């Protein structure tokens, strides 16, 4: 028998965890001598009360949806893919190669090709840790951490020695051709009279991210493969007994996860920078962990959590601009969210379970 009703598990536990994290964040703001309520107002003002704020919020949210889904898919197979950062970096390389070396007549074709490039490169980077886990039992968490660092070195080498235009100092590729420019929200929804989303980086990739959320939902809950992934995640021995090959599930899950993380590069590299720079993911790969934990590894939860983190990111930038609060506040909030929704989950869950059991006995 379940100890708790399903709604309490899905909504109440994360909600309490987030309230705890928010409360501690407010204490941190108080401790550095600022007013948490004023700070929150500034964040809402900057992130949600104007269309360009939304443009940034949705831009960040797009990144976090991809990386959050990447972590979530792996979680379903009870694997912890901490390598989203590296997979996104290498995904960016895929995007850059496609955009720089193939002449495209239209952005839509470029987007399709770049999507493939990003996903294939990201998946390839996840393949080695996956096969090592499946065949040699090397712990996937450690190998993916190592692969983050290796990815940074590889990218650094490729940018400095191969893709950097002659005479340029900065380790970055040349700008992508005009034809690969993705329509931004301003191009799509704004007009000179009504400048919606002006100068904000949100672009058409957002819709790909939403589509990815739906696709992952279908994959996990409506396909045979998704069923096998979940079965493997619940019990490896049971899955084996049912004829599911662990090697196959580990590798396929990690390929999907790495591909999703790689797709993030569409947004940052093709949508925003329009060239490949060092450290393009800017930590979004790690934020995916917080997003997946908060969203309970459910695509809809990931969607909501990504929006929340997009808001925090844009709000945090506003705080750094208008108040004397460094952007690192967002990092602290992110840490608290991971701590409470991930590691200290039982701290919230155990008392709640006891409460529900007591209520059930009474009735």
């Amino acid at each position, binding site marked *: 028998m379940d100890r708790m009703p399903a709604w309490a598990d899905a909504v109440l536990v994360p909600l309490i965890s987030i309230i705890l994290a928010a409360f501690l964040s407010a204490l*941190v703001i108080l*401790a*550095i*001598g600022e007013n948490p309520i004023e700070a929150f107002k500034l964040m809402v003002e900057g992130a949600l009360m104007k269309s360009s704020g939304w443009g940034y919020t949705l831009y960040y949210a797009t990144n976090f949806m991809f990386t959050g889904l990447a972590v979530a898919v792996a979680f379903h197979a009870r694997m*912890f893919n*901490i390598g989203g950062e590296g997979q996104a970096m290498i995904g960016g390389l895929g995007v850059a190669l496609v955009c720089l070396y193939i002449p495209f007549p239209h952005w839509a074709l470029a987007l399709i090709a770049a999507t493939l490039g990003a996903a294939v490169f990201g998946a390839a980077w996840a393949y*080695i840790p996956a096969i*090592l886990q499946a065949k*040699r*039992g*090397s*712990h996937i*968490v*450690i*190998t993916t*951490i*190592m*692969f983050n*660092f*290796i990815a*940074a*070195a*590889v990218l*650094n*080498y490729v940018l*400095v*020695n191969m893709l950097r235009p002659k005479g340029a100092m900065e380790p970055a590729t040349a700008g992508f051709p005009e034809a690969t420019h993705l329509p931004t929200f301003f191009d799509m929804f704004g007009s000179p009279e009504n400048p919606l989303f002006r100068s904000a980086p949100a672009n058409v990739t957002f819709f790909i991210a939403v589509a990815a959320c739906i696709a992952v939902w279908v994959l996990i809950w409506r396909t045979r493969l998704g069923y096998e992934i979940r079965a493997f995640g619940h019990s490896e021995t049971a899955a084996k007994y049912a004829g599911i090959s662990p090697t196959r599930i580990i590798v396929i899950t990690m390929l999907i996860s790495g591909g999703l993380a790689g797709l993030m590069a569409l947004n940052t590299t093709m949508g925003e920078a329009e060239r490949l720079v060092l450290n393009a993911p800017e930590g979004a790969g*790690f934020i995916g*962990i917080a997003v997946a*934990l908060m969203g309970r590894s459910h695509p809809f939860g990931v969607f909501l959590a990504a929006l929340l983190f997009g808001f925090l990111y844009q709000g945090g930038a506003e705080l750094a601009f208008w108040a*004397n*609060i*460094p952007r*690192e*506040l*967002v*990092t*602290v*909030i*992110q*840490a*608290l969210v*991971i*701590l409470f929704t*991930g*590691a*200290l*989950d*039982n*701290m919230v869950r*155990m008392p709640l379970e006891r409460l529900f059991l007591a209520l059930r006995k009474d009735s």
Partner: protein
Amino acid sequence: MDLDTIIQVLDSTIRLSTPLLLACLAGLFSERAGIFDIGLEGKMLMSAFFSAAVAFTTGSVWLGLLAGVAASLVMSAIHGLASITFRGNQLISGVALNFLASGMTVLIAQDWFSQGGRTPSLIGAGRFSEITLPLAETFRPIPVFGPIYADLISGHSILVYVAFACVPLTWWVLFRTRFGLRLRAVGEAPEAVDTAGISVTGLRFAAVMICGVLCGIAGAYLATGLQAGFVREMTAGRGYIALAALIFAKWRPWYAMGACLLFGFLQAIALRYQNIDLGAFTVPVQFMDALPYILTVVILAGFVGKAIPPRAGGEPYVKER
């Protein structure tokens, strides 16, 4: 390459290995007791900030060291609470602590010193000074041995000697004391330890706290020995390299020293020479940066000897009823 250059490179190898070695031994205690710790980085960073901040404000590096160790212990306590008391996921807890350190240090540094997330530079008694070993100058004229003794072995801060002394100490504690036997047992078969009537929780907390102390010393060395003050993200992935060294050493103290010296040597080479020209081809600096991680993956894959972690590592212990 003459002797002077070799000694200079080896000298910086020792300096750069020290924080790795302390963090690696820290991880060794924790993981041998069955608690995975990818939060070594965060503990070091937290300690680096608080040691530099307190050393600057009080002017005493020893108080700084104490503050650093205390800060690292607080982080350890959170990790213990999450992974032992509440049986949470140890890896996720470690990730959270790394982010907590990376955000909090800059936030507090900005609030206290308003220098863009740094502490002011430490001078005089705010830093660990270099110790000249006895007879260093007397031995200097002796060829080969003289310079090695005077420049390589002598002339480091006290924490360097502490770090290297910790290697035999760790070996002795783990393999020659009752506490060490129990600590290793709790990482392999906690149910056996529990049956023998010894507290699994207590032992694991002890291990996590030792890990905190060692990480604290490592962080304090970074900010007050190796460099003069705290700058944001100053640990620069050293916690992960230490983790790599730990796996490379297959969770054994003497091998840990070897691995840390090797990785420190790679860092020293990468610092001194950008690209290494071997005549036929050039070794790019990025390859040197990535080498510790590549070596660790190779070891993990079991192509060169197999790295098998403690059996109960990462598993919260649930008492049977």
